[in-house]
C-alpha cells in the first residue's frame, strides 16, 4: 500500500501543496499529468529521495516520512535509468541484493533467473556503455526488481523504447506484477500502454490531485 497524506513538496521554485493519494491493492497504478506538474517529485518523495515539507508518506500502513530510502524497500526505475556505468550488467542487476546483504550465491542465483526471464543473459558481462537504449531500460527494470520488492515505482517506464521491444517488455512486466503481487506506481505522461491493465489512474494537476478515469 502506498499513501500520501497532505504532503507538501518544495524544491526551488517548484511547490506542490497538500497532496493526498492512496494506492491500496497490488497491481499497476498510474499517476499521469503533463510534463512539469511534479510527477517525478511525487515518486521521489515516496522513495525517500526528496524531503517532504509537511504531511506523511505511508508504506504498507506505516509512516515512513523520515525513514531512509534503503529502509523503504522500494524498487525504483528512474526516467533516465541511471545504470552504474562502472559496474557490469551482472553487478548492476545484483546491486540491491548485495546492498541488502544477500549471500553471493543467492545474489548470483537471483541475477541468473531474472536475466534469463528478461532475455538478457547474454549481456551479463557487458557494461552499460556497450548496451542499446532498450537493453539499458531492461537492465534498469531488472535492477529495480532484483531484490523482490513488494512496492515498485517507475518513472516514465517504456517511454524510450521502440514498438516491438516496448510491447514485449510491457507484457513481461504485467505477468511479473501478477505473479509476484507487486504494488506498482507508474508515473507517465503517456498512459496508453498501461491503461488497459491499470487498477487506478490519478491525474496530477498542480497543486491538487483529482481522480481520473
Amino acid at each position, binding site marked *: 500500500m502506498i499513501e500520501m497524506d497532505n504532503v507538501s513538496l518544495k524544491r526551488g521554485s517548484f511547490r506542490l501543496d497538500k497532496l493526498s493519494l492512496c494506492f491500496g491493492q497490488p497491481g499497476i497504478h498510474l499517476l499521469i499529468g503533463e510534463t512539469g506538474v511534479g510527477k517525478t517529485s511525487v515518486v521521489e518523495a515516496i*522513495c*525517500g*529521495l526528496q524531503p517532504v515539507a509537511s504531511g506523511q508518506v505511508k508504506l504498507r500502513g506505516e509512516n515512513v516520512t523520515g525513514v*531512509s*530510502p*534503503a529502509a*523503504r*524497500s*522500494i524498487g*525504483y526505475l*528512474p526516467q*533516465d535509468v*541511471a545504470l*552504474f*556505468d*562502472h559496474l557490469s550488467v551482472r553487478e548492476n542487476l545484483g*546491486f*540491491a541484493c548485495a*546492498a*541488502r546483504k544477500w549471500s553471493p550465491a543467492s545474489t548470483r542465483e537471483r541475477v541468473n533467473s531474472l536475466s534469463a526471464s528478461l532475455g538478457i543473459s547474454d549481456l551479463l558481462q557487458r557494461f552499460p556503455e556497450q548496451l542499446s537504449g532498450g537493453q539499458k531500460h531492461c537492465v534498469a527494470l531488472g*535492477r*529495480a526488481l532484483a*531484490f523482490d520488492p513488494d512496492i515498485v515505482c517507475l518513472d516514465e517506464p517504456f517511454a524510450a523504447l521502440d514498438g516491438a521491444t516496448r510491447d514485449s517488455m510491457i507484457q513481461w512486466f504485467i505477468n511479473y506484477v501478477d505473479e509476484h503481487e507487486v504494488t506498482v506506481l507508474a508515473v507517465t505522461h503517456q498512459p496508453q500502454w498501461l491503461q488497459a491493465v491499470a487498477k487506478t489512474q490519478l491525474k496530477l494537476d498542480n497543486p491538487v490531485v483529482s481522480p481520473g478515469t
Partner: protein
Amino acid sequence: MIRSSRYFVTVMGIMALIYVGLLLAMVWAHVALVSGNPQSAWSTLTRPEIQQAILLSLGTSLLSAVLSVWIGTAIAYLISRVRFPFRPLVDFLMDLPIFLPPLVVGVSLLILFRQTPLSRLDDLFGIAFQVPAIVLAQTIVGVAFVYRTMKATFDSMPVRQEELAQSLGCSWYSAFCKITLPQASPGLVTAAAIAWARSFGEFGPVLVFAGSIRGRTEVMPVSIYLELNSGNLDGAVMIALIMVVIAAIVLSVTRLTGGVQRGGVRR
C-alpha cells in the same frame, strides 16, 4: 580547415612549441651539467645525509599525499553535496594554502605550534623542527590541491546515481564507497599525484617549520638549498635531476592508471 582556423591553430601550436621546448631545455641543462662533471655529482649521491634526504623525501611525501587525499576528498565531498551555514566561507578558506606565499604558511605553522596553546602539543610530541613538521607542512598545502581537484570532480558528477544506490538499499556512506568513489577514481588519481608532487617539492613551509637540520629534517629541496649555499652546484643539480626523474616516473604511472582525463579531439 578554413584559413582563420589555421592561423588560430598555428598560434596555439607556436605557444605550445615554445613552452614544451623550454621544459625540455631545462631538463637538458641538468643532464649537461651533471655529465660535464660526473664524479663530483656522483660523490654527492654517495653522502649518507643526501641518501637519507632522498628516503625522507619519499617517505614524508607519500605519507602527506595519503593524508591529503583522505582529508581533502572528505572535505570536497562535504562541500559539494551538503548545504550548511558558512559553506562558502569554508570553500574560500580551503584555497588559502594555495594563494598564500609558501613562507607565510611555514611562519603561520611555526607561530601556531610555538606561540599559542597548541605549543603544548609540540612539547608533548615534538613537532616543530622534527619529521612531523615536514609532514604537517606538506599536508597543509597538499589538502588544498586535493580539495580543489576533488570538488571539481564531485561537482561534475550527478547526484542521481548516489540517490539511486540509496533507494536500492545502500546507506549514504555505502553509496559513497560503492558508487561515488569508483566513478571519481580518475580525479582521485590525479589529486593524489598532485598532492604527492606538491609534497615532494615543498620547500618554503618545510624550511621555516621543520628547519634545515642535516640528517634530521633535510628533504631533497632543502638539500638543493644547502648544496647551493655551500657552493656545490654540481651536487645541487644532481639532486634536482633525481627529483625530475622521480617526478617523471610518478607522472607516467598516473597517466597509465587513467588519472589524466582525455578530452575530445577535433578532426
